[in-house]
């Protein structure tokens, strides 16, 4: 089970008109594992995420979830399967409080009315289970939260909905040192709880700190999927900028998304 990827893409292709953005991409995510998705600007990271989330339809290739082929028509299909994406711009409503944001679009109702106390209870429990203690009250408006706290709320939302795969798009891009540390420890805890975490990041230190595996996109192709301990920062940067690793080139099987 551990070795069986929960999410797997095989030979994925995606073009916008004549521009081939993703070429024969292999990608897999496993439960209990943080896989970092890295690559230079324009390498195709965002497009890949949007294909996974169902925002873009794929041109060709296989999309397997829990071993079964699936077709994504919209982001709703992805969330129905348990794939949650935490966007860079967060997608929270500033004028609503934490509970309201965590349940947005999936509010619990009793009869006609919103079941506020049960939602508040669940939100509190979820934050507690993630050892989040920086939030003073779950009835605070999101506008009054710091960047790190907002990121925490967005991630906790994914946990609340029992997601199996959580994709984090540059979660620490706008954060200070302390808040970045908070969010990274939360990312680690997600994987330890048994979720599959896909972390998109530009920050090499951060990737090397929390990732179990690293997938490198280079000009729309999957240059490598390697285990964390098999690369150092130097090699990682080389992979991102040139798409290859001189001297210690990863084996072909690894490049196909099946680490040795």
């Amino acid at each position, binding site marked *: 089970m551990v070795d069986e990827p929960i999410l797997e893409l095989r030979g994925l292709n995606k073009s916008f008109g004549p521009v081939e953005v993703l070429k024969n991409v292999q990608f897999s995510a496993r439960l209990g594992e943080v896989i970092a998705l890295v690559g230079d600007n324009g390498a195709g990271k965002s497009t890949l995420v949007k294909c996974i989330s169902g925002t873009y339809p794929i041109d060709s290739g296989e999309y397997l979830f829990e071993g079964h082929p699936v077709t994504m028509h919209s*982001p*709703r299909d992805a*969330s129905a399967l348990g794939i949650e994406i935490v*966007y860079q*711009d*967060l*997608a*929270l*409503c*500033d*004028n*609503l409080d934490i509970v*309201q944001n965590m349940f*947005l*679009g*999936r*509010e619990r*109702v009793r009869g*006609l*009315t*919103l079941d506020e*106390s*049960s939602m*508040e*209870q669940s939100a509190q429990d979820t934050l507690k289970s993630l*050892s989040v*203690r*920086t939030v*003073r*009250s779950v009835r605070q*408006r999101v*506008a*009054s*939260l*710091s960047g*790190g*706290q907002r990121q925490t709320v967005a991630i906790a939302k994914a946990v609340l909905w029992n997601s199996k795969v959580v994709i984090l798009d540059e979660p620490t891009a706008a954060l200070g*040192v*302390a*808040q970045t*540390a*908070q969010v990274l*420890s939360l990312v680690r805890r997600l994987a330890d709880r048994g979720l599959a975490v896909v972390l998109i990041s530009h920050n090499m230190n951060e990737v090397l700190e929390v990732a179990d595996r690293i997938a490198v996109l280079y000009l729309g192709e999957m240059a490598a999927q390697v285990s964390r301990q098999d690369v150092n920062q130097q090699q990682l940067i080389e992979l991102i900028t040139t798409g290859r690793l001189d001297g210690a080139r990863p084996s072909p099987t690894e490049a196909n998304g099946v680490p040795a």
Partner: protein
Amino acid sequence: MTSLDKQAEATPELESGSEAQERLAALASTVPSASNLGSYLSLYVQRVRGGEMGSLPAVGGLIVLVILFSSVQDTFRGLYNFGNMLTEGSGPILLAMGLVFVLLLGEIDLSAGFAAGVCAAVMVRLMVGYNVAWPLSIGAAIVTGVIIGFVIGLLRAKVRIPSFVVTLAFFLAFQGVALYIVNNGPGQHGDVRITDKVVLAFENSQMPLWAGWVLAAVIVIGYLLIKVSAQLARRRQGLAGEPTSVLAVKIGGVAVGTVGVVYFLSQNRALHKTPTIASNGNGGFVKVFPPKVEGVPWVVLVLIGFFVVWTFLLSRTRYGRHVYAVGGNEEAARRAGIPVDRVRISVFVLCSGMAAVGGIMIGSNVAAVSVANYAGNTLLLAVGAAVIGGTSLFGGKGRVIDALIGGAVVEVIQNGMSNLVQGNNGSAVQYIVTGIVLLLAAAVDALSRRRAGATGLA
């Protein structure tokens, strides 16, 4: 944000159970929680300072205006005028209730005033020209409003014309449509008189005194039950509720206010109370008393009914939550799977539907439907009422009660100014003052938003 928060933030939280966390938890527990009246008030003051003012400026303004007008003129103070202001202000307030929904999405409906005119014209033409019964005529007027709102909503949500432009176009067109309906068809033309007793009764008749007291009892007991049951539900779940003292103050305030208003409205407020002597036809004489004006005007029932229903919809249902979400962050709402376009269309439907209700009440107040009664500042008074009451023009912030509070401010200004400045320049001054007040409210809205942005509160 307090310094305590910053301190808590700056402490990274790396491993669970670490010393840092214990310290954090200790810090968090020293943050004032709203456990008693004093700390509840201090939290409130903190929120207001952060730019979250709600209806506070409107309530303050209302008190100042009432004191000002009462001190300079006797007629303003009188009970008769109190009842008068209630009925006069009800039309714009009903319009404003609908506008709150549109403003919550950051949209505007400039056509609501003339939409009210069109709907009222439909009603009166059916009643006067075709002898249609009042329930059907009123129903037709409301359906007209709903259709108007649906068309506006479609043009905004699907064709994606900015609501400012769509409703500006309808503002012009509906003036023509209303004119056409009042000037054509069977029956009276131009200034079409309302003769139906029920429609006239809304603004011109009062409930029996006992019914007024029943209404008061229903309001107070209903409010008490809602508040107490919510509190008990939270206690059961082990969640912190409002402090009991705050709850008691709120319920007490509502009770005193309601009983006070009903008490004053139960007095005979007719301007002439002295009887005249008349012949009884048999050579004797009798005292003839002028008709009494006492009791709660029927329109108050309409106001309360809509206030309760819309407040419930906005604050307790999934739909209401979605309205706030779309107004706060449309993209986030869409990603959360909320049908954004449907929500957008629905608020315009609701707004124009309420415009129909408001239009009928304005007609009932002057006992006739003429286009002039819906022209000029009808719409601006309604928008002004909502904004003065604390509903933001930027979307995402507002409540139905804002329409009531702001509507009271607008009506007091209208009424007070028209009595204060008599003569040729009366209406000129009234327009100028209302314009300035609207501008002031919009400025308060914009500035408090900026302040909220600066302090991290919104």
